[in-house]
């Protein structure tokens, strides 16, 4: 069962990373015209950077760390080091980290009636391209679906294994 649960953990790590990406996209789209932020600048685009995460604190990994190895007091004893027998570390989980992208330049929009317009009537708007955001959203949502399929398949496998 350990194998199947780690498949579910793996799928879950993918789901959580892709959900972070969807969150970032939603935030970007919602703030497409935000001119006021606590730093005094227009809103800055956020995006998620994905990375491999081999040391994820899953149940299995934590369990292996917690299990005490048996004392080896005689050379005839079989080595029982739970961490060495575990091959969990070789297959990486995934993790997403949200980073704020420093824009090269904010978008300049001419709108003299806007309260934040400068003396020439220009307003600085966030540098967000809706098309890019939509593409990111579709990518994240497809990847999310793929991970859902993985979890569903692992669940089905666990069920049939219990039917033996």
């Amino acid at each position, binding site marked *: 069962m350990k*194998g199947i649960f780690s498949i579910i953990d*793996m799928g879950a790590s993918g789901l959580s990373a892709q959900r972070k*990406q969807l969150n970032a996209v939603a935030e970007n789209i919602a703030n497409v015209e935000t001119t006021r932020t606590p730093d005094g600048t227009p809103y800055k685009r956020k995006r998620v950077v994905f990375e491999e995460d081999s040391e994820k604190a899953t149940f299995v990994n934590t369990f292996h760390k917690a299990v005490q190895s048996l004392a080896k007091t005689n050379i005839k004893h079989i080595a029982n080091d739970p961490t060495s027998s575990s091959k969990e570390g070789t297959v990486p989980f995934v993790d997403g980290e949200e980073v704020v992208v420093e824009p090269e330049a904010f978008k300049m929009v001419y709108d003299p009636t806007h309260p934040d317009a400068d003396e020439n009537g220009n307003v600085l708007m966030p540098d967000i391209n809706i098309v890019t955001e939509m593409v990111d959203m579709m990518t994240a949502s497809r990847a999310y679906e*793929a*991970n859902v399929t*993985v979890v569903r398949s692992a669940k089905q*496998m666990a069920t*049939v294994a219990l039917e*033996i």
Partner: protein
Amino acid sequence: MLKYCAGKNMIIQDQVINKTGIPLLKKLMNVTSASQKLTAANIANVSVPGYQSQSLDFKKEMAEAVGKEKIKLEVTNERHMNPSGGPNAIKIIDDAEETNSSGLNNVDVDKEMANLAENQILYSYGSKMLTRNFNTLKSVIRGKR
């Protein structure tokens, strides 16, 4: 007493269980679940730049179980561990393909999803056939129709 029981278990393992398809099906389920895990890792890491996708050689792993290429440990003493019962290391290989059209890494989602479906079916097959094998043994043991 313990020694006697262990010997008896050995005989059942050797003469009954190993003559059915059970060891092979066990291996099939082990291999498919390991493969499923690698596929899951590949799908989870689909957006990681520079990720190296991994897989295993299904044919090779199964060939070992069927008896080809198998280096069998001799059991010369009943206290020896049964080699077929020990944990079988499954070899993980890095896929050789270059970066795919996404330009990010070499995970091919279509291939992985196909793998996922195939593995799931094979695993279910293993499970169902194992049940049948056990049921056959059970009815032989009961000896009645």
